[in-house]
């Protein structure tokens, strides 16, 4: 797995994009996949910044490709248990006045990936996403 650490701040999104692009170039991933990777990683990353800002430690993003499977792993170090996979789904047919902005990101991540897992060990939150590549 290719891994890199980033400061837990929204300003890291630019360098995360550069990391994704470099991985995509090395693993022959197209623009659409770069978009998807940016999207799902940003949503998880943003959750970590918003809901667990206080750890003061960098978090890490890891990417690997095994044949048609892409694996994405984000680790938030020294934090409390926070499982985004357990959030209820968003009702996309609700009218505007009943909608609230929260939870949209996680809902979208679930639609973009094939598997979304949460683990919590030694005060570290680990999110693993799996995405099947089209051939």
């Amino acid at each position: 797995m290719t891994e890199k650490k980033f400061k837990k701040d929204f300003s890291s999104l630019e360098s995360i994009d550069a990391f994704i692009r470099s991985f995509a170039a090395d693993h022959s991933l197209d623009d659409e996949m770069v978009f998807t990777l940016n999207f799902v990683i940003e949503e998880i990353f943003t959750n970590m910044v918003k809901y667990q800002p206080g750890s003061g430690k960098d978090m890490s993003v890891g990417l690997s490709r095994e044949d048609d499977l892409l694996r994405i792993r984000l680790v938030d170090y020294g934090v409390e248990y926070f499982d985004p996979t357990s959030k209820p789904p968003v009702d996309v047919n609700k009218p505007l006045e009943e909608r609230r902005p929260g939870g949209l990101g996680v809902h979208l991540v679930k639609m973009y990936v094939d598997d979304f897992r949460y683990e919590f060990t030694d005060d570290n939150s680990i999110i693993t996403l799996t995405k099947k590549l089209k051939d």
Partner: protein
Amino acid sequence: MSTFKIEHRENNAINVLDLKGYLDAHTAPELEKTFQSLIDTNRFRIIVNCRDLTYISSAGLGVFMAYIEDVRRNQGDIKLSNMSPKVFNVFDLLGFPLLYEITPDEADAVKKFQETGKPPKAGK
């Protein structure tokens, strides 16, 4: 890479925002500020032209959700145009095409504003 730019112009007395680049959690506050300044100066007829918008995340979608009710309460609207399929897909996955007017071209959005903005014809 992750740059974002907003340009504001007018088309037939409608405020057009041209978005360029990445609308993410980092850049979303810029769009918030722009919407807020339009609202503060009573400009409620807004078209967001997404032709050069290459990326949007839920933080970006949240900005549209945050201002639409305010704008509509003032007889205005935020209409979106010229979206790439990738960007449209994000809106579509959340059912946004039911909530927002999304047109293929800016001209269509202008037309929609002109149709709804006209007073009803006499004799009807």
